[in-house]
């Protein structure tokens, strides 16, 4: 997110709307209401990316790859994922992991387009599987763009910047 864009203050109606959107989304994903999430919160034009990260010297930046990913999704491929999880043979998530999205540090900025707001947030994803007592934790910064479509905010772009180079979880059959 371009940090020169005007910041939306925390005491505005727009900020409250974005925060509410984030809480609603986290609830749908935690409750495995993935179809409802896709159909009511995700734009048909969505780009959803989790870029690869490498360890590099400080002078070379944060190490995110511009063109390689852990996930690179469109609406069609997200729909495929949701459909797959709805089949009775999606063993990876059946029985499902227990997932909790903790979203904090929400920062909202206006974009050049009056219909689009840019949102940065920190995400801590807590996941346990079967009888695991130690959680898998995935920490990330999310860079989102939300676009107003028919009056509702919809996810137009999401970049999930993981704080990891080697991913320590058995699969990414989950949504960030």
């Amino acid at each position, binding site marked *: 997110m371009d940090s020169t864009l005007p910041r939306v203050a925390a005491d505005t109606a727009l900020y409250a709307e974005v925060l509410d959107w984030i809480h609603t989304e986290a609830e749908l994903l935690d409750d495995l209401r993935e179809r409802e999430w896709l159909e009511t919160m995700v734009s048909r034009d969505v780009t959803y990316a989790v870029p690869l990260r490498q360890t590099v010297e400080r002078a070379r930046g944060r190490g995110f790859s511009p063109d390689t990913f852990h996930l690179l999704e469109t609406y069609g491929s997200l729909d495929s994922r949701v459909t797959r999880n709805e089949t009775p043979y*999606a063993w990876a998530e059946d029985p499902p992991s227990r997932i909790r999205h903790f979203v904090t540090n929400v920062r909202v900025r206006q974009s050049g387009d009056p219909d689009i707001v840019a949102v940065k947030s920190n995400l801590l994803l807590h996941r346990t599987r079967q009888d695991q007592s130690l959680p898998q934790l995935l920490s990330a910064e999310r860079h989102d763009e939300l676009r107003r479509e028919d009056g509702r905010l919809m996810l137009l772009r999401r970049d999930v910047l993981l704080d990891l180079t080697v991913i320590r979880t058995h699969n990414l059959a989950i949504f960030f």
Partner: protein
Amino acid sequence: MTSHTDSSAKLLDAVTEGAEKGVIPASIFGDPDLYRQELRNVFGRCWVFLAHESEIPAKGDYVLRKIGEDNFIVVRDDEGEINVLFDACRHRGVQVCRSDSGNTSHFRCPYHGWTYNTKGNLVGAPLWRNAFGGMSKENNGLASAAKVASYQGLVFGTLDQSAPPLKEYLGGMAWYLDLVFGLNEHGVEVLGPPQRFVIDANWKSGAENFSGDDYHLGTLHRSVWEIGAFPVPFHENMMGYHIQASPGHSLSFSMAQDANEPGPNYFGFPDELAQSFNTTNISADQLEVARRSRVFVGNVFPNFSMLALPMTEDGSNHPPVGILTLRTWQPHGPGQVEVWNWFAGYKNLTPEQKDRAYRAGLGTFSMGGAFEVDDTEPWITVSRNGASTAAELLDFQLNYEMGKPGVGISKPVKEWPGPGRVQWTRYEEGVQRNMYGFYAEMMRSAPGQWPSLVFPEDAAADKEHRA
């Protein structure tokens, strides 16, 4: 000898006997003593895949890779040669490579500043005259792998001076690598750095799966047909060849019996690309086998796997297209494996075709892919049960009998243009018995000694040929 090594020796005897019969002790997927022996006798001796040449095209390009659990710098020097250097400073053993990849003229140790060039030679240290004046720089460089070699753009290294040349080690597998990587004069390049993820499983589960476990698709991966990710129906996909290319290395082709069956051909690679395939670097037989192949999956012992097949991440918008993934199963303790996953494509694909193949591959064969997300699930419990006391006390043996004489429909094939032991239909686990048979031999070979790298019948045929 301690009782520990006695127990691993017993396990290995059981593997050797069982690889013939089709029974493998479950404990090999969790035994810690066996694992330590694997690091030394398998990863410390075999040729291990490190990188693709296209990852380090320019002088000074490097990537940080692993042999067993240890870090090695794979770097192209000023003369264009590839060196494989143990990432440990000669002074006190500190790691000298600070990034996963990059370009550099030298590696400087952060502790006292010893500095090495891209050949690994010591070139200097701070205040050299005061500190080391009079001492030779020679023999104070970084340690190198014993041998380094490439085949079809694939860079391998070994820590064993007594290892046979790479081509000899690959044996019959080279013929099959040719027809995946050498279909035209352009060759293959990787599409970006590898994805890395860690799962609580044993490295052998990945290696044996890619040696040719096609049977699991019908159950574990059933969901991918529901979403249209893969165009060949399960039963049809079980038709094809299981091939033990040479001891240790195995592969599998999905292929129709009728040579003129309409596609997918060439693993589903785009038609425009297929038009550029020719016999510049391979034989007409190899080209024809590639043409007829819908799926290729294989494993170079111990831990380098490849897969080429038609896939889509979004069946409603994009038809399946040939993807190519390369991967290593890096050991990380008996109960943990780090998966390194590269996507690759022919260099003469258009940027749009590369993008399509990359997206199709990422959406199916990656840690978030529709196919692969399910694979890790069973492997985790294989290693958990392998490490169990119950498996040891009950002497729990696993069944690897599929396709043995009298078991199932798979039959040996006599007419086949390539090397190895060949079976028709993929209802077969000889490919895995081959991996474990060689594994046990390698594990018990004394330093300097190597198990045979050719099957007895091929060695005999070879002799006849020469006589």
